[in-house]
């Protein structure tokens, strides 16, 4: 439902830095941040706006798209 981080990610950590809901975690900075609290996402789009390489994609659960 929330964002997912695709292969374009350059591991800059902007999404982790910016998210107003603190939805991401970034325990290993050699790897991509993790969408750690997916259910807490507000779909505000801040992470995608701040991602410099277009690595953020949004998915919506069936409970939003098919009700």
């Amino acid at each position: 439902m929330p964002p997912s981080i695709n292969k374009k990610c350059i591991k800059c950590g902007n999404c982790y830095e910016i998210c107003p809901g603190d939805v991401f975690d970034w325990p290993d900075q050699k790897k991509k941040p993790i969408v750690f609290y997916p259910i807490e996402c507000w779909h505000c789009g801040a992470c995608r706006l701040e991602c410099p390489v277009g690595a953020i994609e949004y998915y919506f659960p069936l409970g939003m798209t098919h009700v």
Partner: protein
Amino acid sequence: MGGGLAGLNAAIAAAERGVEVVILDKGKIERSGNIAGGVDHFMAYLETGEPWDSREAYLEYVEEEGYGIVNAEIHNRVFCDELKNAITRLERIGSPLSDPKTGQYYRTASMGQPGPYWINFNGKFLKPNLAKEVRRLGCTVLDRVMATRLMVSGLKLAGVMGFHTRTGDLYSIECKALVASTGNTNRLYETPTRMLFNTWLCPYNTGEAQRLALEAEATLANMEFLRMTIVPKGFSAPGLNAFTGMGSYFINGLGERYMSRYHEKAEKAPRNLLVWGTLNELKEGRGPVFIDSRHLPPEKISHLKKTLGLDKETLDDFLKARGIDIEKKPLEVMVSEAMQTGPIEVVGSGIHIDENCMSTVEGLFAGGDCADQMKVVHMAVAGGYSAGKFAAEYTLRNKLKGLDKKEVQEEKARILSPLKRKKGLHYQEVEDVLRQIMAENVGPYRTRASLETAQTKINALAPYLEEIKANNFHELMRGIETASLIKVGEIMARAALFRKESRFIPYHYREDYPETDNTNWCGQVLVSQIDGKITSEFKPLHYRHGSKGYHLL
């Protein structure tokens, strides 16, 4: 306290006056609060010479729309005095209200306005631009720091405490004045999709200022009102203004334009009546309901599509995922979850402020959606600035009060206690029960019995706050938010029980007192907590003009 739209404008005002400013925000100020992902509208009069486009006409609209609970004198001083400055400031920081290419304002009318007071603009980078200005002015920004307590000394504001939601570092800050600007309260009612963070406005706005101010013995007002809106089926996203401003139709399951049954302005009726009409259509079995834009000319459709994306960054993705092109197909809609906030666009709910944006506690100011006389974007920008301006003037006349060391130590231990529990409840388990209680008993149809039931159940739920266990600082933040939600819910039920009439239906609709009673209830319900005891009282308001009423058909 709170670095959203109001908080950053307050910080700018104070810093411009040479005051040392510290900003606390649970998020990062570049993208936090209700407009984290952008915004597309700002309400203003522009004095073009049109009869509706003046300060006087605007204030008359404010009195008419907010009749009974709005204080137009405060509005005049806090908003109108700062409007021109606000428009100039937005332009200066790089988020102008006018079209950067043409210099023209794109203005639309809806929500009962006498003329096109909404300005559509590109507010996608409004937050980052304001944040840049705040940092340029040398304010100290404490991103990811959540306030947990206001410290008071001799009935005056003395400081604030909080913790870093990632590192757990504790903060105790002495200050001469504090501007509370943490917004409205979301995540308080069940959502129609049962996904707790799928809310119209920011689900991380959870009423911290309302709770902390009450605990510091400041008075709250207008807390009985909830607010709901019409959102796309499945996604509680903003965008209603854009549709109604462009002239979209609301249609029911029989294909009828039902809003003309409820209000003479049909889809351009005030928001509460759009919700009232839609709830009624659904209750009487004429669903599903849709917003139909197919009749709009191509230029309006293209403007509409553009502004929808500015108001909610991901709405376009959602509509694609749902297979909807608003040009070709009506958009199925639903009534959103409820929230605690001012009932209409020109009057707020929360900390009771005077004409200097000060609460009933000296040195504690409020701005934006958590103040009882401010609401939405235009008031957060102009009114937030006023709160910072008056707070700065206050600090220049006053000294630090000092913090009580024992109180600081006690608060430090209290903040961290949910981390120390070996076992306990997840915050969500407690919150889910609260949301159900609120939706079933303090929703758009209320009675004395439902409100008393809510009070009993919330009182029985509150002790479980002491059993919430946090596994890390993030969960600690969520658990403290739960405490604020429970307090706000309790106050809403109490204030709603106190007001024995209906006003701004269905935002306060008492089945047992269905009429608006301007003889006895023209005024605000104030709620205070002194020495732990909560009391309610009524404060009458007087108006130059009588209410013309709602023109309900």
